């Protein structure tokens, strides 16, 4: 057996995944959550995230190899996120992965975090002629909300992005307003199930824009203002109205971008892709929608191994790969131009 080991330490979870180098199948995907470390602070504390990655990285890798039924002797290549993300956290995974790859005589692939998300749902099915069709890719997570046009050569060009908070970040912040703790995104979605989205009117962000950007900060503020004015509002109704507004903004923009770019295939990745309301709304668009399998939507190491395996944004210059530094701010299309 030959495998690719991938690691992501871009934010607050330590993820190591193992992908079969022959088939591209995900053999293991272990994510050590740091939620308990950061919960008392109501958000991710970068210094603590870095320390925690360093503390657990060996154990997470050992568990992933054991889950895959593989050993270090089977590791053909090691892939690590080099950006964007928290610089101290990135440096732990990047340095560890380079050293592991070098020690094993394996190849090393620095991977852009968003290339990992794009890879998480696999490549699109070939069209009737056997070519890879273009598609729109929506990355919606706690750290990113961007819309990419991905061409047949799998080159991504950003066509829209959040001007302020990421979609997942907005979920977490509104969850905190409602006293749901951190990270509250999933708890907010659970609460919204029992609420009436039409009971509370919230402003729809960037309504009428010609472009494909997103904005969630004003929506969060609108929820805060409503809560302050009317503390007795049923939290479930507020949660449902908020969730419905976010889903509407994401899906409407995606649908409009698909029409304008003449594509009928979309892939939706990142932690928010796990949201049940979003998935239902996507299914109603008539677009051909792919989402990542369970466990690959939120940050993880398997998607980094998958990106390396699919060759997404991978540099051909092996010597340069060994000298790659962490890049905390790094647009995906700028990274792709630098690599080509």
């Amino acid at each position, binding site marked *: 057996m030959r495998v690719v080991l991938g690691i992501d330490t871009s934010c607050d979870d330590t993820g190591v995944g193992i992908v079969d180098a022959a088939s591209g199948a995900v053999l293991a995907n272990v994510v050590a959550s740091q939620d308990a470390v950061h919960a008392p602070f109501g958000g991710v504390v970068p210094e603590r995230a870095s320390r925690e990655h360093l503390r657990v*990285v060996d154990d997470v890798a050992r568990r992933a190899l054991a889950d895959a039924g593989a050993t270090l002797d089977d590791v053909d290549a090691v892939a690590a996120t080099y950006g964007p993300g928290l610089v101290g956290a990135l440096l732990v995974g990047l340095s560890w992965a380079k050293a592991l790859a070098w020690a094993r005589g394996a190849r090393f692939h620095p991977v852009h975090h968003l290339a990992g998300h794009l890879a998480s749902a696999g490549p699109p099915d070939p069209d009737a002629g056997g070519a890879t069709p273009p598609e729109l890719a929506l990355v919606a997570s706690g750290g990113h909300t961007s819309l990419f046009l991905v061409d047949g050569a799998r080159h991504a060009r950003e066509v829209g992005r959040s001007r302020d908070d990421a979609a997942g970040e907005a979920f977490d912040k509104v969850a905190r307003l409602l006293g749901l703790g951190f990270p509250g995104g999933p708890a907010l979605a659970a609460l919204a199930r029992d609420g009436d989205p039409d009971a509370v009117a919230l402003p729809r962000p960037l309504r009428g824009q010609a472009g494909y950007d997103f904005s969630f900060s004003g929506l969060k503020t609108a929820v805060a203002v409503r809560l302050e004015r009317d503390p007795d509002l049923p939290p479930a109704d507020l949660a449902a109205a908020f969730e419905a507004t976010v889903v509407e903004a994401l899906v409407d923009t995606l649908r409009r971008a698909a029409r304008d770019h003449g594509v009928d295939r979309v892939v939706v990745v990142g932690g928010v892709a796990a949201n049940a309301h979003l998935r239902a709304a996507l299914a109603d668009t008539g677009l051909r929608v792919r989402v990542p399998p369970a466990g690959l939507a939120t940050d993880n190491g398997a998607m980094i191994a998958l990106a390396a395996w699919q060759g997404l944004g991978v540099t051909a210059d092996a010597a340069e790969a060994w000298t790659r530094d962490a890049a905390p701010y790094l647009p995906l299309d700028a990274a792709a131009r630098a690599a080509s």
Partner: protein
Amino acid sequence: MPLQLGLDTSGPHLALAVADDAGHPIARRTDDVGRGHAERIVPTLEALLADAGAERRDLAAVTVGVGPGSYTGLRVGVATARGLALGLGVPLGGASSLAPVAWAALAPGETGVVVRDARRGNVYAALFERTPDGLIEHLPARKRPRDAVAAEHGDARWVEDVPPDATWLATRPPGGAPPEPIYL
């Protein structure tokens, strides 16, 4: 030829050295890399092994400087050491990052206070004596006001901004407790 690797990235230098299993220094590199540790570490490691006429499979133990020093630098060093030890299947240990500086700066019989700037008027400081056989750490590293350290150790040699010699790390007994960065 089994070799032990010593590695320190806690300051502006990337310090690497290898010693044989009898504790004899074989090769070392001390490059001023500023904040470029993550970029330079693998090429420098390869250059070090070339200097030593050795291969990566000759590395039989790794000892890393655990600080005190730059948190970011420490993370690069300790994460690298962990990846190397896991990948090579060899023992991993940690030791003070100020000791390699003392080793580089002090002559046998000399006592020195090794200090490293810790910002806001503070320094990391430790007191070392170089003996014919090695180093004695009389006071372990602490973070203290620069003036207080100067007043307290006026009789010892003041050692600051001296590049470390990772040979000291490469000649520690291999293994020990897993290296934990010292965050002072």
